[in-house]
């Protein structure tokens, strides 16, 4: 490639900057019938499968509690475990780098790639590298970063954003994917086969052919990791397609960018998470491939290994006594699949790479709540608690949401909510006023609009109807019938 030509498809713009607040983004998504059908099908399929996979283990509750406690203990002594990890990785031939924020991590990775003299890298799906916007940064530095996970490839070729942690192209159906492959593959490598149909098997085959030439010539691989074992210096990547193995095994240089909260103390701790993660995530007893490596090995895999430990807001979350439990997350995405809000709004409305309930508590902590979308995220929930029920490390997401709402309300903004809460507190303290109000409301119900009037609160009813008023207040009905 020469001049100003791009080496990878342009993304949809700087990562999520200037996203509208959740309610506006969600309103658009809720009006998209195809998107809602795709999401509903996908989330319902996976949540039922997950329930069956979990039911196979009669000690699930004990595994969940163990996972929670291991993570809590790790976070309490995170400095100790990171130092132990650094020592073990270094002793095994790896090099450890520390990145305080996204810019620093991007700079470190860019310098490492440039030092190899290469201008392209193959990537394993990694939430951390999406979080820091690594691909766009590398592109700007003249380095092509190819996503190799099928869904990430669909997103990258479609100039799109991921909308789910596990299946980032969940918002696309097979017909849309076929069109993206037909139109885009040829511009960035081997074109899609002639007459490509839209069966998932044919689409997977097209991806296999398109990516194979990139794997075989790759000299640099970039990954994240699901776990890092402090005791042994071992990194763990769980995956399904084998693209992970390709990126971790074939290149000469491997760079792994991993959030500092991904460390676990001991080798034995994996016995908990290797049981809970696959069942919670893909609803399998075990995912097809899990790779574990410790530094470098003579005659097997990359000759040089770099681990970039990423903070990027994690220590801010760690300082919050309620919010820090979000750092237990093992990125299984079970909470997305059971969430009634995610199912309807989709992943893009959350305005970050971490959508769904976990994103609603993680992002405001990692990025702060200065922007409109980030301040609105703690409200992107009905607090039904389904996310907490399925979480394999027992993160009490509703508890953190309420805690974060308190923080957002405290910084100003959300005035209608605060005014409403104040007014209702006064009414509830004055039972006579409440009863009179209820009767008045019942008698005038024929006149009630389907949409709420007035600025601020009208928006609440733009995507839903107001509930119908009963013919008689409950308290009157109770007095007549039960006393």
């Amino acid at each position: 490639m020469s001049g100003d030509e791009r080496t990878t498809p342009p993304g949809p713009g700087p990562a999520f900057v200037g996203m509208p607040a959740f309610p506006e983004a969600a309103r658009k998504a809720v009006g998209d019938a195809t998107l809602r059908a795709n999401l509903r099908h996908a989330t319902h399929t996976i949540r039922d499968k997950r329930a069956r996979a979990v039911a196979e283990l009669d000690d699930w509750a004990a595994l969940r509690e163990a996972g929670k406690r291991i993570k809590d203990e790790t976070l309490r002594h995170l400095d100790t475990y990171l130092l132990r990890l650094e020592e073990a990785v270094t002793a095994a031939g790896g090099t450890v780098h520390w990145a305080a924020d996204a810019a620093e991590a991007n700079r470190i990775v860019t310098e490492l790639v440039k030092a190899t003299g290469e201008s392209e890298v193959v990537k394993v799906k990694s939430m951390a590298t999406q979080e820091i916007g690594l691909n766009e940064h590398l592109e700007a530095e003249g380095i092509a970063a190819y996503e190799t996970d099928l869904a990430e490839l669909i997103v990258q070729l479609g100039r799109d954003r991921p909308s789910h942690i596990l299946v980032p192209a969940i918002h696309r159906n097979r017909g849309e994917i076929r069109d993206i492959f037909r139109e885009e593959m040829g511009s960035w490598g081997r074109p899609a086969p002639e007459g490509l149909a839209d069966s998932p098997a044919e689409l997977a085959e097209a991806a296999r052919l398109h990516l194979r030439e990139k794997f075989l010539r790759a000299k640099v691989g970039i990954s994240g990791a699901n776990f890092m074992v402090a005791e042994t210096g071992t990194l763990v990547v769980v995956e399904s397609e084998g693209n992970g193995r390709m990126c971790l095994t074939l290149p000469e240089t491997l760079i792994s960018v991993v959030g500092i909260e991904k460390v676990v103390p001991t080798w034995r701790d994996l016995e908990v998470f290797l049981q809970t993660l696959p069942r919670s995530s893909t609803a399998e007893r075990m995912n097809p491939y899990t790779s574990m490596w410790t530094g470098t090995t003579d005659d097997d895999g990359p000759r040089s290994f770099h681990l970039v430990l990423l903070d990027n807001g994690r220590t801010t979350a760690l300082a919050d006594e309620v919010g820090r439990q979000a750092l237990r997350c093992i990125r299984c995405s079970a909470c997305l699949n059971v969430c009634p809000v995610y199912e309807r709004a989709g992943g893009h409305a959350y305005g970050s790479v971490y959508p769904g309930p976990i994103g609603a508590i993680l992002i405001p902590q990692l990025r702060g709540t200065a922007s409109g979308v980030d301040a609105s995220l703690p409200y992107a929930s009905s607090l039904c608690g389904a996310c907490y029920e399925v979480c394999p490390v027992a993160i009490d997401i509703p508890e953190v949401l309420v805690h974060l709402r308190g923080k957002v309300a405290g910084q100003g903004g959300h005035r209608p909510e605060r005014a409403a809460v104040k007014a209702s507190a006064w009414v509830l303290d004055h039972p006579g006023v409440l009863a009179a109000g209820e009767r008045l409301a019942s008698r005038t119900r024929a006149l009630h609009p389907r949409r709420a009037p007035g600025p601020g609160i009208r928006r609440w009813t733009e995507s839903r109807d107001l509930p119908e008023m009963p013919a008689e207040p409950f308290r009157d009905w109770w007095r007549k019938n039960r006393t």
Partner: protein
Amino acid sequence: MTDSRARVLARIRAAVADAPEPPAAARDYRTSHTAEDPAALLDLLHENLADYRAHVHRTAPDGLAGLIARLLAERGARTVVVPPGLPADWLAAAEAVRRTDEPRLTPYELDGVDAVVTGCAVAVAETGTLVLDGGPGQGRRALTLVPDLHLCVVRAPEQVVASVPLALPRLDPARPLTWISGPSATSDIELDRVEGVHGPRTLEVVLVTGR
């Protein structure tokens, strides 16, 4: 860089300075969900491997060479990678052309080979998983990744354990480890599972029992 290390560590220490000591990790989950009966374990391994679309076969040791030869022929494998330390008699009856990894095969050369035959370090019955650790008869990781057919031999009962908690102590974290549960797969398109993406699209497993 050194500064960031100190900065991150200082931030961590400040963040948790007042945090209470959490309760100790409880390990009251099961070590295994299956009775310690070798025949039942082997059946469970067989069932779970097959459930994730591996093709599973059983044989006594004296039938192994013939079975391997037949499976390679049925799949049309004309070339096969032989990892260092693979027992010589395993491929005694196979007609496929043998390729050794000395000197190291390039990724392109590996891509031109049809199949690979290996042993394994341990197999996990409850999850239908084979674990390779690069020991004798297994080779480096790329050998079982690039060819489209992987034929893996498991010696029962000695290589079969019930569960993940029983598998981990038998593995050496210093070695590169690959846990394989069925052929490569994806559910990325409408959560419809498709077997065979980048890893071997066909996984043949031979369970060898008896002496």
